[in-house]
Each structure stands twice: as structure tokens, then as C-alpha cells.
């Protein structure tokens, strides 16, 4: 799942640490999400979107591999 966290975070001049503190997670978790190594839970996705002032579907882009 692709996401825009890094771009939006940088545009708001937030550090990974600051965003992590705002979402009550560790900096490593934010780093893993930004690098597409970890997909966050729905709750964390909403928290991230809220803290970056965007909606969840703007923040995350689901790559549908489809069955057809």
C-alpha cells in the first residue's frame, strides 16, 4: 500500500519523531510505514490522516492487484 505520509509530513515541516508522538507510536513505526514496510491499523491510519489534516483515502493508495 503506497502512502503520501513522507511528502505531507515534510510539507508540514514535521519530523518523524513529532508525528510519532502525535500518534502515540514510535519513530520506527512511522519510518516503517513511510517506507512501505508496515501497513498501519485502521485506527493508526485515521490518526495519521487527522494529524496531517487529510482524509485516509488521500493519505493511502491501495494497489488493487485484482483477480480478473
Amino acid at each position, binding site marked *: 500500500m503506497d502512502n503520501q505520509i513522507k511528502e505531507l509530513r515534510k510539507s508540514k515541516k514535521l519530523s518523524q*519523531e513529532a508525528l510519532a508522538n502525535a500518534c*502515540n*507510536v*514510535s519513530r*520506527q*513505526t512511522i519510518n*516503517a510505514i513511510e517506507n512501505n514496510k*508496515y501497513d*498501519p*491499523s485502521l485506527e*493508526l491510519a485515521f490518526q495519521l490522516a487527522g494529524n496531517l489534516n487529510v482524509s485516509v483515502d488521500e493519505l493511502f493508495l491501495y494497489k488493487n492487484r485484482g483477480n480478473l
Partner: protein
Amino acid sequence: MMKNVKNNYVWTAIILLSCAFAMYTIYITDFKDGVRLGVTGVIAIVLVITTLCQLATWGFDRQIQKDEMGKKIATMSAKRSYHILTIGLFVLWILDRIIFVRKNDFGNISLFAALCLALVIFPIVQFFSARRYR
């Protein structure tokens, strides 16, 4: 804050590694002198290895361990450990039969019981966990 955590991490790693080195040196010397390693010695080695692995994985920042990614890592590791442990028990049970030439059907009873328990415990726990979502 971060610097303190890093400093604590480095110091504890140095102390632990020194303890481990000292301990292993004593054990090797004892082994060379013909002194056998006792239960306490083995437990000490296991404890040092466990602590070092925990420290290498999580460091001192408890938040990483407690947040959702940390919990996912722990859950995934627990599942893999369970599979490795079950296979390990099976291998040990077979080796025990071969090495000690067991005459009875079950081989080492305690090992066999542990293997059966390991095999049966997962579906039972899974059954009760699945009931929560019905």
C-alpha cells in the same frame, strides 16, 4: 532524551557483553580442567543470550515494544517460535529414540507428552479464540 536512551543502551550492551565474555571464559577454562557445566551454568548462559537478544531487538525504548508494530512483531515471532519449538521437540524425540535405543512405543515419555501437548494446544487455543468472533 534520545541521547540518554542511546547512552544507556551502549553502556548496558558493553556491561552485558563483558559479563558474557567473562562467563564464557570461566566455562571454557572449567571445561578444559575437566569441570562439567551444571544446570545453573546452562541457565546463566540462556539468560545472558535472552537478555542480549532482547536488548538488540528493542533497546531501551519501551515505546517500540508497546506500539502496534512492536506487538505485531511479537505476535509474528511467537507464532514462528511455536512452529520451531514443535519441530525441535519432534527432532529431539526422534534423536532420543535413536541415541538411547528406547524399547517402548513412546520413546522418552516426557518428550513425547511435550510434543503431543505442543501439537494439540494450538488448535484448542485457536478454537476458543475463534469463538470470540462468532
